[in-house]
């Protein structure tokens, strides 16, 4: 699926007052006719057809239009059918438009499109697919707009468009004539919609240069608005009192009238997930939620604890094929605990549901299924519902789902008033979505240095892929060369590429259908599957007495992978002398049409492991340095890519060393950031260097999740090398509960009152 760089793109000049150009999204990615026959057997499906392709293919037949508009003041607008949750997609898209039109990035206005049901599968932000799916369409639309503007200017000046140039938004022509591009926005507009084609620039000058985020100024001045910052008339703070177990429903409320009479409380309503309270301030909401006396019905996993779930994963583990005759084996079983993908912005939404219409505001990565479910919940036709996509305060998989938007809809409908519904942090950890617990079992058959086969059985609690990827994948199931696979197994196969030539390769997914609230978490299966694989590779190197980077190099399928390995080896000083108790480790990951290598240095010496931290928190081994080399095919914004890799490194460190949920009788014990130990300043590397490989392909790949899996592999291997014992259960501190759990009832803690004693 390469070779788009020199093709002309078709688009439409729309009949509009000022210039507007629309192009289909996904249109140019048609499934090659011969590909089906050429696809290999199951395990290597991801090599030829990965998730990103699958999402594009699913979108192809529906291919809605996206439009670039040019205004008379010289600004260019584009309503992006994707979510911005910190990954930098609005900045990258701004660059693409500025590139083709030769205007300053400050003249481009990228907004987030409302839910557009006609786009069907094409308004999904997930699978690190955004840049891959919109790179060509956005460039095409802007290139056509450029053509139309130049044609209009040429017409007015009585010259040929080929003699005109655009510099910094000003069109110049023969005889020293020049005028701002916006002055032709009306003349260039279509009177009737007609088809046009154009070719994006052959030699981009902005794409590939490091640019700062377009919203950086708003972020540092407090002007950047998230959902809870929006002012919607009448929308008062609203919170939900939740049960002591996941999915516990309300039986009865003993003191409804008493709580309704509390200061500041305006409304109380029983909804399907608990008791919703609307009040003048969030403090009033917290007080009311804590005062409620509720008899709860049972939840869906009340008896489940870490140990019982682990036992269920062991129970469904299929037998490995017997070792090959004459071969040696490496056998390995790697466990990962549940983990929370809670973003810093908790689940939240504003809803204004009226008898005849509804309006919703939320950060949504899959706004179309959200729109449909919101309409159903509101009892309205989808056409009577408007769903606005708001910038999100992080996602990490969370915002593929619309749990808070549905709750807000239900509460607003029940109360007959607008609500500004926000989850408490404790609820966000305990009732929010979690990354599944998993066990990965690996058998590698080898004969000396010749690897004959690689078997990996990945057992996990069932992952909910329904809302985001669901429609896209379901629509493709019958088109894939696989039979009798579940939806999640298809997802697994299309995301788990094997970067090494390990002979007969067979990776399979086996899920236990337990009803936890699950979702992806900056990668779906990859951190666990790749992490386990990289440990197996490390064990193989040790057994063969080989350098583990050289071994990876020699088995790598792709030259791209060898290049990133060489780069991190060089920049990260692979093989340098390290003091006892410290070590380097390396991991690689291939996904999203991209690849990434991470080299870390870990310090496991007692003085580091036991370093003090004020107040609550965990220390343990510290990754002191990380070096990343990343190849995304076409790097659009290297500065943004570096930022994504930096985040991925901190996620990977947390997953290996510190962060997990302890499931206890149907509820995680974690209820605060001082319980769930995501990487903090005292655990972050002091030195992170990211090298972005120059353009290697014509297809921009994904990057938002790419670096997590490679980091997990690198940190685990480094820990094994530093301590002499390869860890196989993650995070390594999961066996110790390092905090006093908050109570289950009331469900949320009271805010302290001693804040002025902790100033600095």
């Amino acid at each position, binding site marked *: 699926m390469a070779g788009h760089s020199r093709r002309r793109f078709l688009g439409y000049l729309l009949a509009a007052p000022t210039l507007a150009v629309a192009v289909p999204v996904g249109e140019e990615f048609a499934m090659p006719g011969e590909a089906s026959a050429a696809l290999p057997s199951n395990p290597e499906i991801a090599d030829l057809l990965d998730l990103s392709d699958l999402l594009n293919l699913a979108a192809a037949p529906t291919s809605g239009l996206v439009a670039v508009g040019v205004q008379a003041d010289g600004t260019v607008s584009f309503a992006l059918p994707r979510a911005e949750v910190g990954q930098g997609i609005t900045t990258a898209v701004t660059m693409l438009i500025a590139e083709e039109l030769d205007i300053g990035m400050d003249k481009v206005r990228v907004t987030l499109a409302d839910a557009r049901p006609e786009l069907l599968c094409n308004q999904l932000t997930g699978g690190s697919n955004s840049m891959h799916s919109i790179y060509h369409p956005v460039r095409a639309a802007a290139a056509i707009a450029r053509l139309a503007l130049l044609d209009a200017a040429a017409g007015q000046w009585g010259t040929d468009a080929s003699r005109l140039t655009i510099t910094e938004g000003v069109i110049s022509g023969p005889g020293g004539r020049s005028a701002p591009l916006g002055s032709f926005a009306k003349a260039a507009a279509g009177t009737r919609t007609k088809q046009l084609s154009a070719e994006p620039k052959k030699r981009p000058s902005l794409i590939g240069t490091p640019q700062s985020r377009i919203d950086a100024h708003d972020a540092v001045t407090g002007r950047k608005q998230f959902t809870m910052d929006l002012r919607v008339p009448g929308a008062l703070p609203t919170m939900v009192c939740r049960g002591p177990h996941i999915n516990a429903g309300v039986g009865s409320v003993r003191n409804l009238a008493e709580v309704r009479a509390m200061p500041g409380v305006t409304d109380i309503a029983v909804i399907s997930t608990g008791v919703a309270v609307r009040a003048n301030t969030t403090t009033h909401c917290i007080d009311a939620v804590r005062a409620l006396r509720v008899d709860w019905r049972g939840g869906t996993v009340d008896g489940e604890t870490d140990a019982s779930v682990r036992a269920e994963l062991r129970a469904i583990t299929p037998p490995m094929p017997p070792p090959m005759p004459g071969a040696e084996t490496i056998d390995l079983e790697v466990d990962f605990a549940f983990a929370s993908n809670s973003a810093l912005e908790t689940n939240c939404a504003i809803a204004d549901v009226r008898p005849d219409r509804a309006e919703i505001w939320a950060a949504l990565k899959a706004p179309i299924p959200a729109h449909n479910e919101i309409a159903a919940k509101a009892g309205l036709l989808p056409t009577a519902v408007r769903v606005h996509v708001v910038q999100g305060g992080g996602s990490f998989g969370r915002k593929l789902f619309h749990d808070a938007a549905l709750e807000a809809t239900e509460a607003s409908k029940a109360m007959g008033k607008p609500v500004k519904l926000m989850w408490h942090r404790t609820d966000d950890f305990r009732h929010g979505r979690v990354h599944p617990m998993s066990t990965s079992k690996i058998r590698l058959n080898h004969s000396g240095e010749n690897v004959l086969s690689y078997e990996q059985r990945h057992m996990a609690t069932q992952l909910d892929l329904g809302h985001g990827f669901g429609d896209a994948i379901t629509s493709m199931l019958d088109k894939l060369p696989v039979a009798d696979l579940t939806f999640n197994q298809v997802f697994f196969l299309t995301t788990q590429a094997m970067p090494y030539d390990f002979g007969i390769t067979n990776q399979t997914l086996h899920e236990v259908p337990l009803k936890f609230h699950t979702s992806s978490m900056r990668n779906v299966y990859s951190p666990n599957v790749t992490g386990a694989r990289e440990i197996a590779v490390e064990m193989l190197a040790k057994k063969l007495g080989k350098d583990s980077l050289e071994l990876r190099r020699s088995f790598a399928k792709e030259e791209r992978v060898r290049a990133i390995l060489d780069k991190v080896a060089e920049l990260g000083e692979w093989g340098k002398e390290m003091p006892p108790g410290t070590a380097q480790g390396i991991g690689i990951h291939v996904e999203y049409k991209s690849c990434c290598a991470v080299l870390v240095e870990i310090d496991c010496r007692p003085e580091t492991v036991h370093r003090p931290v004020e107040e609550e928190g965990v220390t343990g081994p510290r990754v002191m340095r990380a070096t990343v080399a990343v190849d995304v095919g076409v790097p659009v914004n290297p500065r943004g890519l570096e930022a994504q890799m930096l985040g991925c490194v901190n996620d990977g460190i947390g997953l290996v060393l510190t962060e997990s949920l302890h499931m206890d009788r149907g509820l995680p014990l974690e209820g605060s950031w001082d319980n769930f130990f995501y990487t903090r300043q005292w655990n*972050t590397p002091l030195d992170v260097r990211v090298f972005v490989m120059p353009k290697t392909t014509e297809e921009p790949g994904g990057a938002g999740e790419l670096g997590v899996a490679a980091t997990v592999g690198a940190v685990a291997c480094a820990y094994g090398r530093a301590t002499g014992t390869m860890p196989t259960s993650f995070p390594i501190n999961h066996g110790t509960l390092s905090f006093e759990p908050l109570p289950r009832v009331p469900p949320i803690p009271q805010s302290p009152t001693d804040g002025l004693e902790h100033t600095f």
Partner: protein
Amino acid sequence: MPEHSFILNGNRVSVDTEDNVRVLWVLRDLLGVTGPKYGCGINVCKACTCHINGKAFNPCSVPISAIKPSDEITTIEGLADQRSGKLHPMQEAWLEHDVAQCGYCQPGQIMAAVALVRKARAAGTELDDAELDKLRNICRCGTYTRIREAIHTGAKNM
């Protein structure tokens, strides 16, 4: 309801609300000042960090009744020079290092960073790695390294 008055970003404000309402919600829910963010409500994540009389504090954990009429509260909105509009050196440093990703925690990070630098200056101590390790503000996007770099740059220009 009791009336509470204090100085917010240089201007006197007053609100009528119950004594126990935490300052964060006075700012956000009643005054519409939304720079300070909610991240936990229990003084753990530090997303709401603001300044009171020049020192960092977390308004999620202070009832409005604890605020005196003479107290000066500064939120991220009040950090830039109020007359010229010129950004604070720490904000400029944040831009220079392109620190923010989603940006949700960054108002709190910047306010904490400014207070940390002032504290180190007052104590005559160096802002070394151990001092930066003490920052408890969570950044779930994982921008920590750029935060550290920006604090060093901002400190130089403060």
